[in-house]
C-alpha cells in the first residue's frame, strides 16, 4: 500500500478536523519549513478576522515587537515566572508562528496568543480533587474522533519511519512542494491525529493547556478565527468537544491563577548557532540553514538545486580542509540522494536523504577521521552564522528584572543600595537555608561572569570544607551592563549560568571529536560549577556523562576527584544541591534527586581499578598521590556508600586492589613497588611486621648504584602512602631503624644519600613531625633538646644536657648494679627511655654517629654532634637544600645558626671541596651518584667533578647529565659533552650487541637475477615461456634458462622508520633509549630513520639521528603533550606509506585533544603506515601510561605496548621481512 492509498483511507477520518470552521484549524510543527512556506496561502484562503496562536498569553503585548519589520529573525522570546516555570521559543523565518504574526501585521488581522500563561501555577491544580476532572476530560477528548487503533504504527510501517520526526518528514514535509496548501493542511492534521491516537497518557499540563485554549476559542465566539496550533492539539479544539467540555474546562480554569504577576517576558536576538540542536540550547532544530533555504524555495526544482548547492559547498569545505572530495564525489552524492528519494517514493529528497547520501559517499566508513571532518564541514555549511536582531522599541530584558527580585528576596544589596555599601557577608551555608540560597545565587552570579560578589575565604581543598563562607558583595558599575549583555542566554539567572556553561563547554570541545565528548578536565570543571550553582538538570547530565567517555579518558586523580564530588552530593555537602527538604529553600533551591549516585560511585571505582593497570610502571609521585587518594576513599567513604549499593562490590574491588598491589610489588616500577607495599600494609593484607622486614631488605640490598637508586624510589613510594601513619606510629620505621642501627658509619654513609633522597620529597614540616615522633622513642631528653635548641638558648641547653647526661649515666650504673645479667639487645624494650638511652650511648660508642643523628641526617635536619656526621649532612644539604611545601620557608627548628642572618657557619664549600668531602665521606662510587643527582637538580658545577674516563655508564646518569645540558653555556659544556659522549657510546655499544640479531638478514620478496637462496617460481615460469618445448609424448614443458630469485633486502629495501618521541614530562629512560635505538637503526642500510621530538611543539631531529648525543642535547624537555601534532608532523614526512613504520613513544597523557590524536592515528593507518605505540621503551617493560587513551588508540589501529629495545628490533624486523 502506498502513501496515497493510506491517506485516502484516513482522509475521511480526519475530515471533521479539516472541515472545522469555528475556528479553522491549522496544525503546525515548530520550525516546519513546509508549513511556513504555505501558511500565507492557507491564511489568505480563510481571510480570518483573528488568528489564535499557540503561544503563552503572556506574549500578548510582545506580538507587535515580533512582527515589527525592524526585528530580524532569528530571535527568541521567553517568559519566566518566579517558581521557575519557563516558556522559551526561538523563532526563525521558517517558524510558522512568526510567519503568522508577520502575516497578521501585514493584513491588519489581530494575532492573539491563547496558550496557558506561565504564571498560571498549574502545578497547584494537581491535587487529588482535580483527578476526576482530568479523567473526564481525557475520555471526552478521546470520544471525539474515530478510534484509530494502531494508525500510527501502520503509517510508520508503510512509510518506513523509525520515529515521529521521520514520519512528519515523509508525510508532510517532503510531499509539500507538490501538493496544494490544503493538502499540506490535511496531512499535518492527519499527522497530529495519528500521534494523538498513539499517545495513551496525555499529561495533566497538556490537558490544562488545551482547556485554556478551548476557553479562549469560546470567548472569541462568532468571529471567523483561525487557530494555529501544534497539530497534536488540533483534535482538542473540535466544536463538539468545545460544547461537551465547557463545564469541565471552567471548573479546571477557576483553580488556576488569574493574575499573572511576576511573569517576566523578554525578546532577545538569537543566532543560528544557538538554534542548532547540537548547541544544546532548548527548542532547537538541526541544520537551520537547510530549513531557511527550504522556506524560500518555490518549486521542487529549486529545492533540488538547493540540495545540490549544499552538497557542493560541503565538498568544497572538505577540500579546503585538505581532504579529497572532488566533483565525482559530489556527483555521486547528488545522484544517491535523488535515487534514494525516488526509491522511497518521495517527491523530493529531504534532509534525511541528503545526510544519508553524504554519509555513504564521503565518510568512507571512518567515523573518527574523515567522518569528523565531514561532520564539521556539514556543520559549517548547514548551521551558518546568521544573527538576529530585535527592534529598538523592545523593553528592557527580563533578566535584569528577575535578578533584581532575586536579590531583594534574599536581602542582598541591589542597585538601589548606596554605592559605598559594599558588604561583607558571612554565610553559614550548612545550617541556614537562606544562607545556602544566598551562597548559591552568589555562585551563580560569579559563574555568569556578572561582577557582583567575590569570595574572600580560602576555598576548600579536597575534602576539607569551610563551614562559614565569607563574601564581599556590592552592586557595582558594571553589574547592570553585564546583566543586559548576558540576557541573550535567558531570562533567569540559572538559565544564564546554564547558557554560559554551555558555551564554555562548546568552546572547549571544539577540537574534540563529538563521539568522544569533552575532555575530563572540562567535564570536572563543568560538573563542579553545575553542582555549586545548583543546576540540577545539568548536574544530572554531567553525572550521566561521567559513565561514558569520561571514564575512558580520565586519569586516576581525575576519577578520584569525580568520585569525591559524587560523594559530597550524596551526603548533601554541596551547597547547590540539598538532599532533603530541611535543606531546601524553594523555589531557588529544590531537593536534588539522583538515584544512580551509588551506582556511579561503584562504576567510578571500577574504572579507577581498571586505570591501575597503566600505573604499574610509574615513577611519578603524582600517580602515587592518586593512589593514596583512592586508598583513602576506599578506607573511609567507600564502605558506607557501597554498603547501600551493590552486593559484593566492595569485596570485589578490594580483591582487585589487593591483587594489583601484589602483582605490582613483584613486577612493578620501583616507586610503585613501594607504594604497593604501603597499600598492602594499609589494607592489612600484609602484616606490619612483613612491611618492616621488606623495608629492611630494601636498605640492606642497596649495595650498588642501581640498587641505591631503587632504595630511594621504592622507599619514597612507600612513604607517600604511609607517611601519616608513620608520624603517629614510628614502629612502621622499625625496618629502617633496625638496619641502620647495625651499620657502621661507612656503610650507613653509603646509603645515606639514597635514604635522604627518599625522605626529601616531603615537606620540611612533615619530616620534622616524623623526626619528632621518632625521637620520642629515644628519649624525652632529645625532644627537650631540640625544642630548647630552637630557642637558640645554647647555654641553658648545654647545662640541661649535662644534667640529663649525668642522670642517665647514674641510671645506667644503677641498672647494671641491680641487674648484672641484663642483656642490651636492640629488641628488648622494657623501658623505652632507658632503652633509648642505651642505644644512643651504645651506637655512639660503637660508631661515630648516634642513632638520633642518623635519623636527623636522613630526614634532612642538621645533626647534633659536630663531627663527621655534620659534615656529611652539610654535604648533602648542598644537594638537597631544604625542600618544598609546608615549613619550607621557616628555618628548620633544629638547624643551629642556619643561613638566615649572618651565621657563624663557614662559607659554603666550593664544588671541588664538596666533591672531595663527598669522596672522603661516602666513597667514590656513591660520590659519583651524588654528583650526578646534584647535576640533575641543577648544580652545573657538580658535573665537572665527574671523571669521564672512569664513569660507569648508566641510563640514569646519562639522563641526569643530559637534563642540564640544555641550559649550559657553550664554554662550560665541553666537559659535559665529553662525559655524555662517553656514556652514550658505551651504552649504544652495549645496546647494539643486543639488538642486531633481530635485524640481520632482512629480506623482501623483490625479484632479482642475482643468485640468492630463494627462487621466485612464478616469475621464473613466466620469464621462461619463450623456452617452451614439446616433450616426446606431446606434453609441453619449460626449460628454465633464466632463473629469477627473491633478492635479499639489503640493497633493495628502502624502509622508513620514524620515531615520534614525547619529551613533555621529563627526560625519561624511554627518550634516551629511543635516541639510542634510532642511532642503531640508522646504521642499517635498509632503513632511513627520522626522529621527531614533541611536546606542544615539534622538533624534527632527523638530521642528528646518527649521533644520539647531539640529538639528545637538542631535545628540550618540558611543556604539554600534543601527540596529535607530533604524529601529524610524522605523517607529513612520509613518502611511501606502505614502506613506513612509525614508532610513537609516549605515556599517552594527551593534553590537547584526544580526538585529534585518534584521527591522526586513523589517518596513518589509512595511508597504510604500520604504527606501534610504546608506553615505554626500556629494559624493564613496565610502563606508566594513561590506560584509557592507550585503549582508544589501540582500538583505532595502533597497538600499544611496553617493550625492550630487542623487542622493538624484532617488530621492525618482522614488518620489513613482511611476516
Amino acid at each position: 500500500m502506498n502513501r496515497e492509498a493510506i491517506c485516502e483511507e484516513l482522509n475521511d477520518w480526519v475530515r471533521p478536523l479539516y472541515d472545522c470552521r469555528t475556528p479553522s484549524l491549522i496544525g503546525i510543527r515548530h520550525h516546519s519549513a513546509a508549513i511556513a512556506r504555505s501558511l500565507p496561502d492557507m491564511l489568505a484562503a480563510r481571510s480570518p478576522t483573528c488568528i489564535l496562536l499557540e503561544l503563552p498569553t503572556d506574549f500578548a503585548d510582545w506580538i507587535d515587537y515580533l512582527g515589527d519589520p525592524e526585528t530580524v529573525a532569528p530571535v527568541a522570546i521567553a517568559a519566566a515566572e518566579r517558581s521557575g516555570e519557563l516558556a522559551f521559543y526561538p523563532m526563525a523565518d521558517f517558524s510558522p508562528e512568526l510567519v503568522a504574526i508577520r502575516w497578521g501585521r501585514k493584513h491588519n488581522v489581530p494575532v492573539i496568543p491563547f496558550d496557558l500563561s506561565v504564571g498560571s501555577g498549574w502545578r497547584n491544580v494537581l491535587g487529588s480533587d482535580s483527578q476526576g476532572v482530568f479523567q473526564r476530560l481525557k475520555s471526552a477528548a478521546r470520544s471525539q474522533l474515530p478510534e484509530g487503533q494502531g494508525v500510527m504504527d501502520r503509517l510508520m510501517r508503510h512509510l518506513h519511519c523509525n520515529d515521529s520526526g521521520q514520519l512528519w518528514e515523509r508525510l508532510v514535509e517532503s510531499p509539500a512542494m507538490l501538493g496544494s496548501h490544503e493538502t499540506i493542511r490535511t496531512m499535518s492534521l492527519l499527522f497530529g491525529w495519528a500521534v494523538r491516537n498513539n499517545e495513551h497518557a496525555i499529561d495533566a499540563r497538556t490537558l490544562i493547556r488545551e482547556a485554556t485554549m478551548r476557553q479562549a476559542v469560546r470567548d472569541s465566539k462568532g468571529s471567523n478565527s483561525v487557530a494555529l496550533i501544534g497539530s497534536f492539539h488540533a483534535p482538542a479544539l473540535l466544536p463538539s468537544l468545545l460544547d461537551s467540555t465547557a463545564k469541565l474546562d471552567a471548573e479546571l480554569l477557576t483553580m488556576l491563577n488569574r493574575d499573572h504577576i511576576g511573569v517576566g517576558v523578554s525578546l532577545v536576538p538569537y543566532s543560528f548557532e544557538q538554534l542548532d540542536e547540537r548547541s544544546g540550547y532548548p527548542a532547537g532544530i538541526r541544520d537551520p540553514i537547510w530549513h531557511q533555504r527550504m522556506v524560500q524555495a518555490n518549486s521542487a526544482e529549486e529545492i533540488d538545486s538547493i540540495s545540490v548547492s549544499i552538497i557542493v559547498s560541503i565538498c568544497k569545505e572538505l577540500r579546503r580542509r585538505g581532504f579529497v572530495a572532488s566533483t565525482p564525489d559530489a556527483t555521486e552524492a547528488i545522484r544517491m540522494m535523488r535515487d534514494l528519494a525516488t526509491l522511497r517514493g518521495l517527491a523530493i529528497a529531504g534532509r534525511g536523504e541528503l545526510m544519508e547520501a553524504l554519509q555513504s559517499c564521503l565518510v568512507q566508513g571512518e567515523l573518527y577521521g574523515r567522518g569528523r571532518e565531514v561532520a564539521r564541514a556539514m556543520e559549517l555549511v548547514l548551521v551558518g552564522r546568521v544573527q538576529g536582531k530585535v527592534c529598538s522599541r523592545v523593553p528592557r530584558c527580563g533578566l535584569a528584572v528577575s535578578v533584581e527580585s532575586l536579590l531583594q528576596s534574599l536581602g542582598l544589596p541591589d542597585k538601589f543600595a548606596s554605592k559605598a555599601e559594599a558588604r561583607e557577608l558571612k554565610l553559614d551555608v550548612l545550617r541556614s537555608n537562606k544562607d545556602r540560597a544566598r551562597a548559591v545565587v552568589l555562585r551563580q552570579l560569579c559563574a555568569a561572569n556578572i561582577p557582583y560578589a567575590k569570595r574572600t575565604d580560602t576555598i576548600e581543598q579536597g575534602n576539607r570544607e569551610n563551614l562559614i563562607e565569607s563574601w564581599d558583595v556590592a552592586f557595582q558599575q558594571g553589574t547592570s551592563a553585564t546583566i543586559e549583555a548576558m540576557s541573550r542566554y535567558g531570562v533567569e539567572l540559572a538559565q544564564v549560568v546554564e547558557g554560559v556553561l554551555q558555551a564554555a563547554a562548546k568552546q572547549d570541545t571544539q577540537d574534540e571529536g563529538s563521539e568522544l565528548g569533552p575532555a575530563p578536565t572540562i567535564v570536572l570543571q563543568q560538573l563542579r560549577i553545575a553542582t555549586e550553582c545548583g543546576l540540577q538538570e545539568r548536574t544530572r547530565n554531567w553525572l550521566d556523562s561521567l559513565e561514558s567517555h569520561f571514564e575512558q579518558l580520565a586519569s586516576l586523580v581525575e576519577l578520584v576527584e569525580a568520585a569525591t564530588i559524587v560523594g559530597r552530593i550524596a551526603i548533601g555537602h554541596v551547597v547547590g544541591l540539598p538532599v532533603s527538604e530541611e535543606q531546601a529553600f524553594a523555589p531557588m533551591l529544590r531537593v536534588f534527586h539522583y538515584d544512580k549516585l551509588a551506582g556511579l560511585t561503584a562504576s567510578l571505582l571500577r574504572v579507577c581499578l581498571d586505570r591501575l593497570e597503566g600505573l604499574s610502571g610509574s615513577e611519578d609521585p603524582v600517580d602515587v598521590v592518586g593512589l593514596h587518594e583512592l586508598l583513602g576513599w576506599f578506607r573511609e567513604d567507600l564502605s558506607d556508600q557501597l554498603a547501600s549499593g551493590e552486593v559484593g562490590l566492595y569485596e570485589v574491588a578490594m580483591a582487585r586492589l589487593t591483587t594489583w598491589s601484589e602483582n605490582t610489588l613483584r613486577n612493578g616500577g620501583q616507586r610503585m613497588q613501594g607504594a604497593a607495599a604501603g597499600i598492602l600494609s594499609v589494607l592489612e593484607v600484609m602484616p606490619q611486621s612483613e612491611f618492616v622486614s621488606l623495608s629492611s631488605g630494601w636498605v640492606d640490598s642497596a649495595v650498588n648504584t642501581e640498587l641505591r637508586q631503587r632504595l630511594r624510589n621504592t622507599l619514597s613510594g612507600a612513604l607517600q602512602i604511609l607517611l601519616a601513619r608513620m608520624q603517629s606510629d614510628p614502629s612502621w620505621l622499625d625496618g629502617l631503624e633496625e638496619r641502620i642501627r647495625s651499620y657502621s658509619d661507612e656503610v650507613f654513609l653509603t646509603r645515606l644519600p639514597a635514604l635522604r633522597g627518599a625522605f626529601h620529597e616531603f615537606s620540611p614540616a612533615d619530616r620534622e613531625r616524623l623526626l619528632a615522633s621518632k625521637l620520642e622513642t629515644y628519649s624525652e631528653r632529645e625532644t627537650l633538646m631540640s625544642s630548647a635548641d630552637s630557642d637558640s638558648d645554647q647555654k641553658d641547653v648545654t647545662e640541661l644536657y649535662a644534667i640529663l647526661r649525668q642522670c642517665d649515666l647514674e641510671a645506667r650504673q644503677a641498672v647494671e648494679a641491680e641487674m648484672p645479667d641484663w642483656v642490651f639487645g636492640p629488641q628488648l624494650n622494657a623501658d623505652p627511655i632507658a632503652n633509648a638511652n642505651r642505644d644512643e650511648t651504645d651506637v655512639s660508642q660503637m660508631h661515630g654517629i648516634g642513632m638520633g643523628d642518623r635519623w636527623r641526617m636522613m630526614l634532612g635536619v642538621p645533626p647534633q654532634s659536630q663531627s663527621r656526621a655534620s659534615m656529611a649532612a652539610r654535604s648533602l644539604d648542598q644537594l638537597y637544600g631544604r625542600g618544598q611545601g609546608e615549613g619550607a620557608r621557616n628555618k628548620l627548628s633544629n638547624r643551629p645558626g642556619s643561613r638566615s642572618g649572618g651565621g657563624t657557619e663557614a662559607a659554603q664549600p666550593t664544588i671541588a671541596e664538596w666533591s672531595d668531602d663527598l669522596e672522603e665521606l661516602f666513597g667514590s662510587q656513591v660520590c659519583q651518584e651524588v654528583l650526578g643527582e646534584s647535576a640533575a637538580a641543577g648544580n652545573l658545577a657538580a658535573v665537572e667533578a665527574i671523571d669521564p674516563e672512569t664513569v660507569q655508564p648508566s641510563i640514569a646518569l646519562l639522563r641526569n647529565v643530559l637534563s642540564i645540558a640544555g641550559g649550559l653555556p657553550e664554554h662550560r659544556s665541553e666537559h659535559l659533552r665529553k662525559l655524555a659522549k662517553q656514556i652514550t657510546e658505551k651504552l649504544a655499544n652495549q645496546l647494539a650487541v643486543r639488538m642486531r640479531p633481530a635485524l640481520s638478514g632482512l629480506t623482501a620478496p623483490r625479484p632479482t637475477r642475482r643468485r640468492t637462496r630463494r627462487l621466485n617460481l612464478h616469475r621464473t615460469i613466466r620469464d621462461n615461456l619463450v623456452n617452451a618445448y614439446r616433450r616426446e609424448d606431446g606434453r609441453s614443458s619449460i626449460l628454465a634458462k633464466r632463473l629469477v630469485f627473491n633478492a635479499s633486502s639489503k640493497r633493495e629495501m628502502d624502509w622508513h622508520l620514524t620515531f615520534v618521541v614525547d619529551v613533555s614530562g621529563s627526560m625519561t629512560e624511554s627518550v634516551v633509549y629511543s635516541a639510542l635505538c634510532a642511532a642503531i637503526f640508522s646504521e642499517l642500510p635498509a632503513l632511513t630513520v627520522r626522529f621527531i621530538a614533541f611536546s606542544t611543539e615539534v622538533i624534527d631531529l632527523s638530521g642528528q639521528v646518527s649521533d644520539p648525543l647531539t640529538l639528545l642535547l637538542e631535545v628540550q624537555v618540558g611543556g604539554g603533550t600534543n601527540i596529535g601534532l607530533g604524529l601529524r608532523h610524522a605523517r607529513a614526512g612520509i613518502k611511501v606509506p606502505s614502506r613506513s613504520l612509525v614508532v610513537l613513544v609516549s605515556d599517552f597523557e594527551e593534553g590537547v585533544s584526544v580526538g585529534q590524536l585518534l584521527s591522526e592515528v586513523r589517518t596513518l593507518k589509512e595511508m597504510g603506515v604500520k604504527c606501534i605505540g610504546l608506553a615505554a621503551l626500556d629494559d624493564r617493560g613496565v610502563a606508566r601510561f594513561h590506560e584509557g587513551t592507550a585503549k582508544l588508540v589501540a582500538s583505532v589501529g595502533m597497538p600499544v605496548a611496553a617493550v625492550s629495545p630487542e623487542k622493538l628490533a624484532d617488530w621492525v624486523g618482522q614488518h620489513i621481512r613482511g611476516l
Partner: protein
Amino acid sequence: MIPMAKSKQPSASEPTPNAIQSPPAEVRYAAELKLLQEMDADKTRPGGWLLTPQSVVDFICGTEGQKIGPSKSNSMAISEKFVGSRDIVQRCVVTLAGERGLLLVGEPGTAKSMLGELLTVGISGTSALAVQGTAGTTEDQIRYGWNYAMLLDRGPTPEALIPSPVMQAMRTGKLMRFEEVTRCLPEVQDGLISILSERRLIIPELLGEQSSVFAAPGFNVIATANLRDRGVSEMSAALKRRFNFETIAPIADAEREAVLVSSRATSMLTEDERKDPIDNALVQLLVTVFRDLRSGRTAEGWQVQQPSTVMSTAEAVAVTTAIVREGAFFPSGFDPVSRLPGHLLGVVMKDDAKDRERLIAYWNGPVRRRAEAGDPLWKRLSELRIVLEA
C-alpha cells in the same frame, strides 16, 4: 544479521539441496525471486537488473508478513532475511544502481557477507561470482590468468585465457562480490581501481577487439571489509573513492539476536543432531553473556572489561551449535550450561593472555551478582568459574 531460518524450506521441489551443506541464497529463495520477477515483468529497472530496486529491498527486508503477488492465488509473504534498518538496504541498492562499488564495513560477524550475497542474488540472480580476499590473493584472481599449457600450445588466444570472476561479471553484466577486500595486499586491491572507474579490462596480450572487455550494464562490485580486524592491509585512498561505504552495526535488539542465534543454529544442525529443540534459556544466557562482553556494559548498567576479541553473533551461533551437537552425540547426563564457560574461553582467548583475566572478572562481577539475585541458571554458571581458571 544472519538469515532467518525459514520455517518452510523450498527443498521439496528443488533437486536434492540436502546434498549441499549450505545451499546458496538463489536456491533457498528461488520461489520468492520467481514471484518478485513476475511482478516486475514490465516495470522499468536499471540495465541488467533482475528486479526493480523496490523489489530488491523487499526481497531482503521482507514484506512484514503481507502477502504480495500478481494474483491472489499466486502470492506469498516475503521473509525478512536481513535484520537491520531498511534504510541501509535502500542505500545499498541505490549505490549499486550507480557507478560506484559498494563497500560494506563493520565488525566481524555482522552479516556483511550475507547482505552482499542477498544483494547479488536479488539484483543479478546469482551469488556465484565472488573473490575471497586473502593475503595470498593475486592479481590473476581480479583480472585474468592463463592456462599455461594452452598458452604454449596456441599462443595468446581468448581460449587460453582464464577469466576471473570479475571479468565474467563484466561480460555478463552481473554483480560480483569481493569478500574481505582489506585482506589482500594493497597492490592487488588496486587492480580494482581501473575496473571500477573505466568499467573496462584491457588484455594487452590479445589483439583487436578482444583486447578489451567492457562491462555490460548491471556490472558492479560489492566488497566487504573488517576495518577493525587485525592484520589487514589498508585500502588506498584512490580505491576508497571508488566505493560508497555502508557501516553495518551489530544487532541492537537482544531479543532479536536470541531468536536469530537459535534459528540460525537450528539451520546449521543436521536432522540427527537436532533431535530436541534448542534450549531457549541456554540461548538467552549465551546471548546475554555475548552482549555484555561485546558492549562493555550489562543491561543493568554494570561495567564489564571488554576482551580484545570480537564477540560476534556468528560466534554465538557457533557456540550454540557446538553445545547442542555435543548434547546429541554424548547425551548421557549432559548439562548444556556446564559446557558454556569452556566454549566461551575458546571464543575469548585468541591472542591476549589478559582476556582470561577479563573473563574471570566478568564472572566475579555480573555473573556472581546475578547468581546472588537468585537466578538458578546464573547460579550454575557462577559455580563453573573453576573451568576458567584451569
